[in-house]
């Protein structure tokens, strides 16, 4: 076995996938340096108040991630942007924006996702009307029930959710489904209804994709216990009314008739896009991305986490929209692939 320093692995991105990969490597005796461009770890997890489907407190999960970093004495360099990863014979040279370069035996790319910029769907009025907000912004508001969705101290009377904002939409170039928004919409609709029982809550959807265990059950609970109104039809436009509310237009495609409704808040369930680092690293390393711009593996059936470039591994939402448990599994799977690769080198 070679000296430990020769077996060092770099992990780019300290979201749940990257941390899971690094800890699995560390547990197997391989040093892993984690690089994170943000000042904190956990990626998007810090932006969520509650997690689907059980509405667990996100901060508890985040604390679990932070504690595991401490207990495994994991080296995470936050506030450090990786600008390039290049192959240098048998090593991968990782350069940060401070100009520091370090060589590693293998690299795990866990660069995550970016949220779709809802302002690109101008017809929904995001960034134009103050009561049109995105799903992560709603999470922030729900964190403080004293503030919540109150308008002039009054609880909202009507709240509408728009599913598939920036997903399944050729107009913005995102043909894929972002997977997590459907169940997020159901979860958030319940949270709004719990906070404001007299508020009418409606979700405008194209399809409801309740694929995970517990998702369909939560959807049914939202319908039956909370009386949330799921209306099949994609919102075509949102416009302000004279009294400062938002008028929403859609077709009720089950009824076959257009409808309009005035709401106090319009929540846009924004999808996932590859982080801009994904394209940058794909270029510098030659790792392939699929038509959607996410990293593509060598064999998605039998070799999870292996990119088509030797020594470069991929995990988490940089490979496609993922839930937290998916991303953690991918991180651990990628770490096992790294271990196989390193032992083959010896």
């Amino acid at each position: 076995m070679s000296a430990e320093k020769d077996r060092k692995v770099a992990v780019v991105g300290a979201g749940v996938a990257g941390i899971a990969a690094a800890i699995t490597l560390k547990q197997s005796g391989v040093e892993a340096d984690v690089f994170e461009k943000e000042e904190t770890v956990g990626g998007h997890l810090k932006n969520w108040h509650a997690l689907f489907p059980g509405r667990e407190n996100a901060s508890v999960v985040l604390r679990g991630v932070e504690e595991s970093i401490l207990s495994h004495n994991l080296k995470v360099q936050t506030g450090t942007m990786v600008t390039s990863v290049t192959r240098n014979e048998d090593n991968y040279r990782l350069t940060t924006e401070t100009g520091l370069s370090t060589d590693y035996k293998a690299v795990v790319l866990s660069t995550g996702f970016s949220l779709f910029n809802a302002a690109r769907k101008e017809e929904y009025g995001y960034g134009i009307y103050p009561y049109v907000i995105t799903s992560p912004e709603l999470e922030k508001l729900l964190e403080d029930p004293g503030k919540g969705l109150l308008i002039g101290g009054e609880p909202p009377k009507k709240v509408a959710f728009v599913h598939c904002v920036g997903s399944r939409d050729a107009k913005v170039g995102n043909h894929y489904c972002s997977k997590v928004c459907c169940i997020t919409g159901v979860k958030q609709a319940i949270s709004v209804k719990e906070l404001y029982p007299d508020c009418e809550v409606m979700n405008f959807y194209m399809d409801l994709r309740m694929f995970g265990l517990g998702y369909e059950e939560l959807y049914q609970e939202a319908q039956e216990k909370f009386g949330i109104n799921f209306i099949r039809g994609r919102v075509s436009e949102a416009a302000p009314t004279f009294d400062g509310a938002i008028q929403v237009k859609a077709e009720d495609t089950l009824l076959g008739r257009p409808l309009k409704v005035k709401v106090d808040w319009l929540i846009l369930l924004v999808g996932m896009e590859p982080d801009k680092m994904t394209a940058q690293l794909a270029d510098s390393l030659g790792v392939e991305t699929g038509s959607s711009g996410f990293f593509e593996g060598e064999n998605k059936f039998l070799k999870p986490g292996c990119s088509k470039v030797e020594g470069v591994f991929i995990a988490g939402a940089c490979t496609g929209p993922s839930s937290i448990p998916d991303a953690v599994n991918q991180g651990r799977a990628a770490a096992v692939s790294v271990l196989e690769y390193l032992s083959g080198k010896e």
Partner: protein
Amino acid sequence: MNKVKDKWGFRPETSNTLDLDKTDIDWYRRIVEKIPGLQSCIFCGSCVSTCTVNRDGMSFREMHLLLRRGEVQKLEKLVAPCLLCGKCALVCPRNIDTRSVIYNLKILMYAPV
């Protein structure tokens, strides 16, 4: 409106748009009070495909949707042929007591209390 037409030779088109702010869903609320499971309908249509009297105009799915949208004036022809046989309840994936829904709707229609 006819005066407008007489004067100008045309009149403004009435919109086909349903205004959810103006719908009266009192009947829907009263039925849901008795059968809360109705709210979990996913409009799959299995009730319609199994219905013996669908050819006579019976459609549980359409009836439920119109009930939810407050279009109660259109309901009668959609439930009048119902024999209350309950086959729709047998096939419902959400296990909704569809038969009771129709029964209660018929009470609201013909024998309101």
